[in-house]
């Protein structure tokens, strides 16, 4: 039950976006793509923190908005300086995304193997 609510939110957001048929101008699509990346990064960071039991509300929410703003700002600066700074953001967020997902995977694997051990011992008893 607790898993389903966020998933429902995601589905709702996607359908809302698709149904409203909003399009942003091509020149701003860079900003949006990097904002999406930042948001995903924060999300997976949040999930990881949650699994490691070090989750903090303030960190999560502030990180979400701050990362998006920073990424978009960096991209904006890059456009005006003529340096593809948004690539730096893509790189940073991409690497962190992979790390976070790797950590989540390991934690889940450990949990799963512990659980199966427990059930094994139960069966033996």
């Amino acid at each position, binding site marked *: 039950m*607790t898993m389903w*609510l*966020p*998933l*429902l*939110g*995601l*589905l*709702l*957001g*996607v*359908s*809302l*976006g*698709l149904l409203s*048929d*909003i*399009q*942003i*101008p*091509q020149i701003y*699509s860079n900003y*949006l*793509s990097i*904002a*999406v990346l930042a*948001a*995903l990064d*924060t*999300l997976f960071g*949040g999930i990881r923190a*949650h699994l490691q039991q070090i*989750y903090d*509300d303030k960190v*999560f*929410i502030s990180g*979400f908005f701050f990362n998006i703003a920073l990424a978009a700002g960096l991209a904006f600066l890059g456009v005006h300086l003529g340096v593809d700074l948004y690539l730096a953001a893509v790189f940073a967020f991409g690497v962190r995304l992979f790390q976070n997902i790797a950590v989540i995977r390991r934690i889940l694997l450990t949990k799963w193997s512990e659980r199966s051990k427990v059930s094994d011992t139960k069966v033996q008893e």
Partner: protein
Amino acid sequence: MKKAINWKFTIVLLLIGFMIAIQYNTMEHPKERDTRDIWAIRQELAEEKKIHSELLTEIRDLDRTISSYRTLSESSTGQALNETVDKLHKKAGTTDISGPGFTIEVRPSVESIAYGIPITSISSDLLTRFVNEVNRFKGIHMEIDGKRYTMMSSIRVINGVTTVNGLNVSSPPFTIKIISPTMSDSEKLYNYLLASPIHDDFYLDNLVLEINQPERDMTIRGYPDKFKNLYLKELPKGE
């Protein structure tokens, strides 16, 4: 505590989903760039203007009909309606029509006669092409080998023979008659057809077009059958 976390996650996920959907929308349907140059735009404008003027002419015509209905007294409304029916009959091609026009003879080419190539009936594709070429001009009436060509006419191959209105078109030579609204229209069409590349298409089929000078007065027969009315129904009287 746990519930609060879930709510925040939900809202954040909703935002992310929304952003992803918008990004997807933007990537899927990029705005089409307008690549027309000034000439293309001018041409489109000219086309629209042509349609505009055609529509204006039509409106003027209809206005005239309405005013004729208004001015006529009760007793002669029947006459006005009859006039309209006649006009529609004429437009549909069910009446005989006479006016300035010219004839075109379709003959086998001299070379094909010299080589003894057997003469076959004209292909439906070629005849359709010819009709399309002529139909660039508005308000014309056409008769192909004695068959009136109307809006509802069809050019088809039936049992290997090209037909118009379901009747065989005889193998060349045969005659096509075209009547235009005025003599100058007729001359314009005549000159257009003289220079038209349609001659090459006919020559490829071993045929030649012999276009005769426009005449002041010509008659072509009306479409003999009744049109099938599939969509309109008469209302019962008094309604």
